[in-house]
């Protein structure tokens, strides 16, 4: 929680500076607050989802300093000085190519795992580890989709990898950095 939230009950707060979606945020955060809860409850960035709070489902995936992580498993105070990109920071105006590919390939249904899937896919593409459909499947397996959109998720990621789905913009790299 933020120091200015008025709560007298926090077990002491710690100053933390985060760059969230390109914007520097100076915050005071309780040591028990996860990065996920900070994003959702304090910064109103509810695009990042809580599916299990145990690092088992991937719905909370965000990109921190270029790497995809489960934000439910990170305490916010551990990430002092980090650059955090959430689904809300992936695009401005037009959709990011991965977002556009998810839309085109119907790579989601209920939409709840979708931000995590997209952030994971953006980072995976940057990791350069996925060259085949089987590799996409393997490296996207930390993100559960209960609606079962997996086949379409693989299609969407493959499409972006092949550079088919509009031109792959530099924003992919930016977001992953």
């Amino acid at each position, binding site marked *: 929680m933020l120091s200015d*939230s008025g*709560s007298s009950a926090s077990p002491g707060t710690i100053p933390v500076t985060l760059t969230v979606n390109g914007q520097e945020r100076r915050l005071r955060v309780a040591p028990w607050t996860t990065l996920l809860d900070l994003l959702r409850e304090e910064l109103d960035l*509810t695009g990042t989802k809580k599916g299990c709070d145990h690092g088992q489902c991937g719905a909370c995936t965000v990109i921190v300093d270029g790497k995809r992580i489960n934000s439910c498993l990170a305490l916010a105070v551990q990430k002092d000085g980090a650059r955090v990109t*959430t689904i809300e920071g992936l695009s401005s105006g037009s959709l990011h190519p991965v977002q556009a590919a998810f839309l085109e390939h119907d790579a989601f249904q209920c939409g709840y795992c979708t931000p995590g899937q997209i952030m994971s896919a953006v980072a995976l593409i940057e990791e350069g580890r996925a060259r085949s459909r089987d590799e996409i499947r393997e490296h996207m397996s930390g993100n559960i989709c*209960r*609606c079962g959109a997996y086949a379409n998720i693989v299609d969407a990621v493959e499409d972006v990898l092949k550079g088919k789905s509009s031109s792959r913009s530099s924003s992919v790299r930016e977001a992953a950095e």
Partner: protein
Amino acid sequence: MATPSRYVGTAQSRQDGPAKVTGAAKYAAEFTAPDLAHGVVVSSAIAKGRITAIDTRAAEAVPGVIKVLTHENKPRTAWLDYNYRDQVAPPGSPFRALNGPEIVYGGQPVALVVAESFELARHGASLVKVTYDEEVPNTDLEKNRGAAYVPPKKRSGIKPPPDPRGDAAGAFDKAPIQLRQEYRQAIEHHNPMEPHASTVVYEGEGKLTIHDKIQGVNNTQGYVCGVFNLKPDDVRVITPYVGGGFGSGLRPQYQLYLAVAAALDLKRSVRVVLTRDQMFTFGYRPETVQTVALGADRDGRLQALTHDAVAGTSTFEDYQEAVVNWSGLLYHCPNVTLDYKLAKIDTYTPSDMRAPGAVTGIFALESAMDELAYATGVDPLELRLRNYAERDEGEGKDFTSKALRAAYEQGAARFGWSKRKAEPRAMRDGRELVGWGMATGVWEAMMMQSSASATLMPDGKLELACSTADLGTGTYTILSQIGADALGLDLDRVTTRLGDTALPEAPLAGGSWTAASSGAAVQAACRKVAETLFGYARGMADSALANADFAHVTFADGEIRLQTDPSRKVGIADAMRAGGVATVEATETVKPSMLTAMRYSAYTHSAVFAEVKVDEELGVVRVTRVVSAIAAGKILNLKTARSQILGGVVMGIGAALEEESMLDHNLGRIMNHNLGEYHVPVNADIHDIEVIFVDEHDDKVSPLGVKGLGEIGIVGAAAAVANAVFHATGKRVRELPITIDKILA
């Protein structure tokens, strides 16, 4: 009025897609209020007994903890069970959280800690000390089979098994081929990705705005009004997005009750979100033990069929689903006896989970049919064609339509079924055994009463609205497609609003009935708008449509045109001007045809073909290929429809190979209550899935000819996989899920 299909029947991207891929879509736990407090549920540590003491002092002493609600201080709520019974409640006495010291199932909520922040509430919850007087729980279905009973009171909307036809026992004894086997379905939990959550915004003077995870906002509203004695006008429920339901969101769950109770008690806004662990503390697909006996002649023609099932239910409600009915429907057979019983165990009440009953019953029937195929030496597909039912022999009715034969043919052709070697263990790919199996799927095609509104705006945009939910099913998009075609508008000029009790009432999103029901309501409302517009157009001075008849016009490109002479036309905007109106609005209600229901049976069908590869040393099964051929009447949106079937198949693969909530019968608790130990399919588990929609014209089933797609994709998928596992390994596993230990046993 002619309605050309410019959008209906085509592939369209989801209208709710941009909100979902940008994170803008808000789910129940993502609405907030300036005075929001957070509630965390304390769950019972025992499955049966009584609370002897509950000490909340340590929790209440934490600065920022506002209140701890327990059975000792919870607000007064309605007395009668009637007030707690929601739209789809089975017979019995609905569970009431914090109603008293009795513990009736493991994980039952025993307290709600409300605090200024989520973390404080969670910390407070860890400090609540509960002392129990523990009894031995009774959760083993096997031990309770002897006490199974025919549910005395039938659940509304669920047909009990039909009366026997012929003499199944006698015919079985005389049949040259006799098979009798037992099949078992494990408990499964829905596990939608969005945990159940309710945000209750206290608007003052007893008025509430509720954002609840529910598959139909009217059910939440009715429940809250009944339980808390509030007026519908004072309770508005708004849930535009639902992060997966699969049936878990049909009934209001206990987090809603607790959040409303706390909000009314504290006179401030409260949000309660369940943890993933707590997602295992309410409804589930029940464990079901089934016996199927097939008597057949040597050519595989069925002479006798009996199908008995015993399913678990809670001690307080008689949950029922149609498990065995399908066996009297799917094949031609003169002698059929079906039986469905319940056995009470100390768990929460089961709830509808995607294709409830059909997943369970069809696994048993279609496994048994596969066994019959091997017993008679008849190809599994040929066996099903030999026993094809031309009529619903259980009810003695014709089908509104049944293109299952085409599904068999097209599915088999695409899969390459004719290349299958009949013998088990005859196909191999390197170190892996290859197996091909198939099964039939069936689900009821239903339509419910639904209302919807259509409003043509001054800027020519059309807004459609009804209260049902889009769980990812594509409802937003298909309703807009129907509206766009009805009034000849571009699709991007049509929007649909859902999930709000202020909108015309539509049924819960479940049972695969939403497209048929709310789709027909939207079409009716648009037709009314069209009639109004036509009236204005014809009344204009020197109207080009002066003597035209409504039946002979068509709406296209923002104009009303005479079909025989499109040069005779009136612009919609001109018609509205002539009528002196800024908007044209209509609300219509549609109902299913009782006459059709009396005369005909309406079902969707599927033919599912699966390829598995089995590593015999490791016992690992991979489903490498599935072809699902679907006969479901008119398909409204090829893109979202395909996704519905893909998702059903994926969940079917989960049922076949992975999903099982395991009870520790000593403790009466589920052991694997998280996504690390309750396995659902992940991306690497899923390979090629092909979906075929066969042509099936149906002018009886519903006004649009739509049958619905939410369930049919999962039905038969587990049996097809199980049958493929047998073909690969020669090992018949009759208990789902088919886990490694069963392959290696």
